[in-house]
């Protein structure tokens, strides 16, 4: 094997990975890049736990009467799958891993504004996930990830408190991360890095951070109220004592709907970066894409009632929430159209990250459009509580957020580790994931439309074929996720050196060596051009 110059330099040079060694140098680090890696390891572990629960569920549903577990166990499986995947994988995935790594680098800063808070947020996340793992190991929880009262407050005999406490604690990790990003983006930009020269990933992370800061505390207080109700039996949500169980749903969804945008907005930011880099074009309608992130964040706080159309909420509230939900489709569509327009006449190369980005665009569009079925009052009555909903939000959360995460990890992996992964394997895995995902979840749209309710351990025999298809798809999807896990770990040791900019991409993070030095840049960069200034962009018109 020939040892080229880049290889040699990455070995001899001091960078953030080799500037110090030992467990302590990682557990006490305040370097945003190392904290990103701590998060990457933690969320991958939680992902595997959540995926194991999903695997058992899909095996169970191979047979109409349930293949392996009792219905009580099945309830615990879908609850723990939802809780872990939403609160411990998807919400921190892109912000805490890619955001932590990239936000300071993309804006030309040495670190985030509050590095110690950044480390603290990881520790808070770990403590929260320990509570959740305790709950998983010692008997589970059966309320679903939504904790609806009065089941969660009065009737459930499972570990509701441990699960709620875990989520409550982890919320503070999100809040601190969001706070850190907002201050960093406002105050730490390099000279010349104006707001409209920021990469669109930064705009997405900014919008996400606003939701973190304003939404998470409401969920926190709701879970505290739930805990009080459960421990002291005081009646805040108990109708027998004058309380209102619907109020819990209002408070829960006030956070948890915007949380969907916490998951998908950062993925949209990643896709904007990928589409521009692999089309070698400036993103079409930069400011529209930027502001659509902010407007999605804003509108996301005004749509929570669409989860409650059939809950007994006022019909007038339902009308308003339905209208607002349609409204949020506009900025989402702006993004999709602008990515597509960026592709037009671009020099497109189909590297693995781009395959994920294109997969995102297609799957997010399907997830978004089926969301409109559910935002319509009349069709929602038929579809609410069925597998149609399950399919819809998996198209957003897995087809959207996870595809974005995978694309981002592949795109920035050479920057993070200084190594290239095997490109053919990566493309193959991306295609397997895309195929497996669709085979898993498209049949669920049909199941839901035919009336199969979600969250049941058994089902009528006529639904078996579609369920077997879905389980087959889940198997393919699982294999698809294992392949990158293997070759990415392999590449850390055996991958060829990447050099500073293997994709010839624009952006400050590519102008520093891979892996970057601890201070990110040897000299504070001075920004003189807009984001995505690729050569094929039309040259600026000379002044007359």
């Amino acid at each position, binding site marked *: 094997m020939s040892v080229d110059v880049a290889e040699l330099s990455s070995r001899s040079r001091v960078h953030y990975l080799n500037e110090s060694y030992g467990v302590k140098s990682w557990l006490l680090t305040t370097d945003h890049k190392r904290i990103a890696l701590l998060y990457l390891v933690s969320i991958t572990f939680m992902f595997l736990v959540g995926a194991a629960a999903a695997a058992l569920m899909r095996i169970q549903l191979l047979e109409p009467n349930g293949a392996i577990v009792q219905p009580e166990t099945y309830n615990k499986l879908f609850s723990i799958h939802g809780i872990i995947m939403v609160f411990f994988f998807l919400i921190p995935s892109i912000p805490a891993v890619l955001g932590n790594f990239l936000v*300071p680098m993309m804006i030309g*800063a*040495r*670190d*985030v*504004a*509050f*590095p110690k808070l950044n480390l603290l947020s990881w520790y808070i996340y770990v403590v929260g996930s320990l509570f959740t793992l305790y709950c998983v190991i010692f008997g589970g929880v059966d309320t679903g990830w939504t904790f609806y009262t009065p089941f969660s407050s009065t009737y459930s005999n499972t570990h509701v408190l441990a699960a709620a406490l875990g989520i409550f604690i982890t919320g503070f990790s999100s*809040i601190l991360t969001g*706070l*850190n990003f*907002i*201050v960093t983006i*406002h*105050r*730490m930009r390099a000279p010349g890095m104006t707001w409209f020269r920021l990469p669109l990933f930064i705009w997405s992370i900014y919008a996400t951070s606003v939701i973190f*800061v*304003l*939404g*998470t*505390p*409401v969920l*926190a*207080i*709701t879970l505290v*109220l739930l805990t*009080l109700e459960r*421990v*002291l*039996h*005081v*009646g*805040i949500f108990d109708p027998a*004592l*004058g*309380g*209102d169980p619907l*109020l819990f749903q209002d*408070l829960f969804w*006030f956070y948890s709907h915007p949380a969907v945008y916490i998951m998908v907005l950062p993925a949209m930011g990643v896709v904007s970066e990928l589409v521009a880099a692999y089309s070698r074009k400036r993103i079409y309608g930069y400011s529209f894409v930027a502001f659509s992130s902010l407007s999605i964040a804003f509108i996301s706080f005004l749509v929570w009632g669409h989860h409650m159309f059939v809950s007994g909420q006022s019909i007038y509230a339902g009308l308003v929430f339905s209208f607002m939900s349609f409204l949020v489709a506009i900025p989402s569509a702006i993004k999709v159209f602008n990515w597509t327009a960026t592709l037009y006449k671009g020099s497109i190369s189909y590297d693995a990250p781009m395959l994920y980005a294109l997969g995102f665009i297609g799957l997010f569009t399907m997830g978004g459009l089926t969301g409109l079925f559910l935002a319509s009052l009349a069709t929602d009555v038929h579809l609410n509580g069925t597998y149609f909903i399950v399919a819809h939000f998996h198209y957003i959360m897995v087809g959207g957020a996870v595809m974005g995460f995978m694309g981002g990890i592949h795109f920035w992996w050479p920057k993070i580790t200084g190594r290239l992964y095997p490109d053919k394997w990566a493309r193959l895995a991306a295609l397997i994931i895309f195929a497996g995902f669709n085979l898993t979840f498209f049949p669920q749209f049909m199941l839901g439309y035919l009336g199969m309710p979600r969250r049941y351990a058994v089902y009528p025999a006529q639904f078996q074929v579609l369920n077997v298809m879905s389980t087959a798809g889940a198997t393919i999807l699982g294999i698809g996720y294992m392949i990158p896990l293997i070759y990415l770990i392999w590449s850390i040791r055996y991958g060829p050196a990447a050099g500073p900019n293997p994709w010839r991409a624009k952006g400050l993070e590519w102008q520093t060596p891979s892996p970057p030095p601890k*201070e990110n*840049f*040897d*000299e*504070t960069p001075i920004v003189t051009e807009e984001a995505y200034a690729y050569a094929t962009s039309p040259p600026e018109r000379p002044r007359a």
Partner: protein
Amino acid sequence: MPPVRRSALGPEMTATETRPRALEEQFESLDAQHDARKLGMWIFLATEVMFFGGLFMTYTIYRELYLPGFEQGSHLLEVRWGALNTGVLILSSLTMALAVRSAQVAARRFITIGLLGITMLLGTAFLAIKFLLEWRHDYAQHLVPGINFAYAGPYAAHVQLFFCFYFFMTALHALHLIIGIGILAVLAFLTWRGRFSDQYYSPLEVAALYWHFVDIVWIFLFPLLYLIGGR
């Protein structure tokens, strides 16, 4: 102390000048650091507003639904203690602001420490009145939901709901105050050690923002809990 790199210095500084001790690695100047910290605290306070906001909204809904019960509950509270506590906290905000000012104009160290001490004392007085006088009284009257609650009059369930909110909101507020007193204790110690100057006092100012916020929460809690239905 981190090594000084040329690029980290402002244009007017040369590499031989050292960075101030309080300046963290990631910032270019003390001013930038001060600005970032203040913005960080304001954003944290926005989080806090939403945290208390969820409770205030829940309270408002139930008060709207069950006004008679909430009025009865409110009339069982000792308004004179609540009023006294309001005065105590407003006074503590004044001494807190004076403490920041004294650091800002580089007054003598003992003045800043003294003002911080008075602020902490006032905070402690608030907690003493709250816990030792009010809550003990409430407990003796069987007004603590879930632990010791008995109420014979009409709307008993709604009175209980009122006391749920009363205890939870005041407890959450008291928790914030306890944290605030702890922060001030640390800052008083650091002041004594000579860590602050007229160039560098941002921890004091940031802590003061938090302290004032905790006061303002009480300014809202007092009328909402003690003054319902005219007394």
